[in-house]
């Protein structure tokens, strides 16, 4: 990797100030960035270590949480308030990576890991519009079993591999940012961009902006939530398909339903069509299956990943059924 400077920020304001000197990147646990730097895919001239920023999980009176961006994945998964009130979030974190990586990786870094694929990593042999805008995408006509069926463009078919982000999308989390122009908040579902013609731009961050915290709104009583991950191995593998679901049923009708899909899209995918189909209706297997199918009608299978359409339909149905106490 090319030489770079290294600074340790004392707080968010200090980090933002340090980032003004061009081509700086914020460094969390390093579990994605250090790897990408070693592969020469990322080449910052300066790293600003933000692991000393807030790692606290603050519990609000209404039950909501503010999670400091420097909180490690393991810290989030083991926290009592997360386990008791947001099991979908704890389960999603525990389904990701390995224990060693979960101990190092930060919440901020998890949000900002690259949307990526094997062709993105193949700097010597493959064309990639993220690495070299306009170069082309060899995944589209290549080995694309692990690639996206939703949200793709002719420029990119990679998936955002985070599990945590899928749960945060289903929970309507809000990302807190601080930058040269001040403080702002962006809903999790708006934080990541679809590729369009510029797959190299993956988030709505302005230059020099830092993720400082993630707010998870309180859930009303009676909500159940779950995360399910379908993959080739039973551990330490990316999702082929994953589902985060939040559900509340009142008097036999669906009062609240939020579903997010992982492993299938260019960004954490809220299943809005399925949700609109389900809300106010019965909580039956037939309704779940019909809604899932409606969501997946937008799917565009590639040569090798058409199986994901059926798996996503079945998994969404199964998770919703599980949440109403039916057979998994």
């Amino acid at each position, binding site marked *: 990797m090319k030489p770079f400077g290294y600074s340790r920020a004392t707080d968010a304001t200090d980090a933002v100030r340090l980032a003004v000197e061009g081509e700086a990147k914020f460094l969390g646990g390093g579990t994605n960035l250090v790897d990408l730097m070693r592969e020469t895919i990322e080449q910052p001239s300066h790293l600003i270590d933000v692991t000393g920023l807030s790692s606290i999980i603050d519990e609000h009176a209404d039950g909501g949480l503010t999670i400091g961006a420097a909180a490690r994945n393991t810290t989030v998964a083991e926290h009592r308030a997360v386990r008791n009130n947001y099991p979908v979030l704890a389960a999603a974190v525990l389904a990701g990576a390995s224990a060693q990586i979960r101990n190092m990786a930060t919440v901020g870094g998890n949000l900002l890991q690259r949307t990526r694929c094997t062709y993105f990593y193949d700097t010597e042999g493959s064309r990639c519009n993220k690495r070299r805008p306009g170069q082309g995408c060899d995944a589209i006509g290549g080995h694309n079993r692990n690639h996206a069926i939703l949200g793709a463009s002719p420029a990119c078919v990679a998936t955002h591999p985070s599990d945590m982000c899928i749960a945060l999308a289903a929970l309507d989390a809000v990302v807190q940012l601080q930058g040269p122009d001040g403080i702002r908040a962006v809903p999790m579902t708006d934080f990541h961009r679809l590729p369009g013609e510029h797959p190299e731009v993956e988030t709505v961050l302005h230059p020099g902006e830092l993720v400082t915290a993630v707010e998870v709104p309180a859930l009303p009583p009676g909500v159940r939530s779950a995360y399910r991950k379908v993959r080739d191995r039973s551990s*330490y593998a990316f999702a082929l398909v994953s589902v985060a679901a939040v559900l509340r049923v009142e008097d036999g009708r669906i009062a609240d339903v939020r579903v997010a899909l992982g492993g299938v899209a260019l960004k954490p995918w809220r299943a809005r069509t399925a949700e609109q189909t389900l809300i106010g209706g019965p909580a039956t297997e037939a309704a779940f299956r019909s809604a899932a199918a409606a969501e997946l009608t937008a799917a565009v299978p590639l040569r090798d990943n058409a199986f994901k359409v059926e798996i996503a339909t079945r998994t969404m149905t199964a998770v919703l059924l599980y949440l109403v106490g039916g057979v998994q």
Partner: protein
Amino acid sequence: MINGVAVEIPADPRVSLLDFLRETLNLHGTKKGCNQGACGACTVLVDGERIVSCLALAAQYDQREVTTIEGLGGQHPLQAAIVEHDGLQCGYCTPGQICSAIGMLAELERGVPSHLTADLTADTLEVSNDEFRERMSGNLCRCGAHNGIIAAITATYAPPTPG
């Protein structure tokens, strides 16, 4: 601090903790398997928590207490158990397995759940063969000594005393 000894972190921030241990400090026990965080052979303990040292920049760890396989001094019961239960063949993954298992047992004692934890709200965690395998899934063994490794961990694990 590395194994209780204060050391000066390299001036070049590109140096990984793994390379610092092996190339600068001549602590060759920690191994470089994949150099991309996928195999776990480089696992060390930082303030008692297991990390993959290949993705760690040495510069980030100057205030932390790092323990490598050498730092165990051959005295940890798991080390004898690995030998007794045939938990190795070539030995390349072994230092990482041992450090990872020690970190894993500490996580278990602390109450960290796993992907297999059926009830995340429960006060106690289930301990089983499957649980150990899941918690050790970040450490690969190409020789296939997993059964011996899990047997060694099982033999070493002591349930917390109630009260």
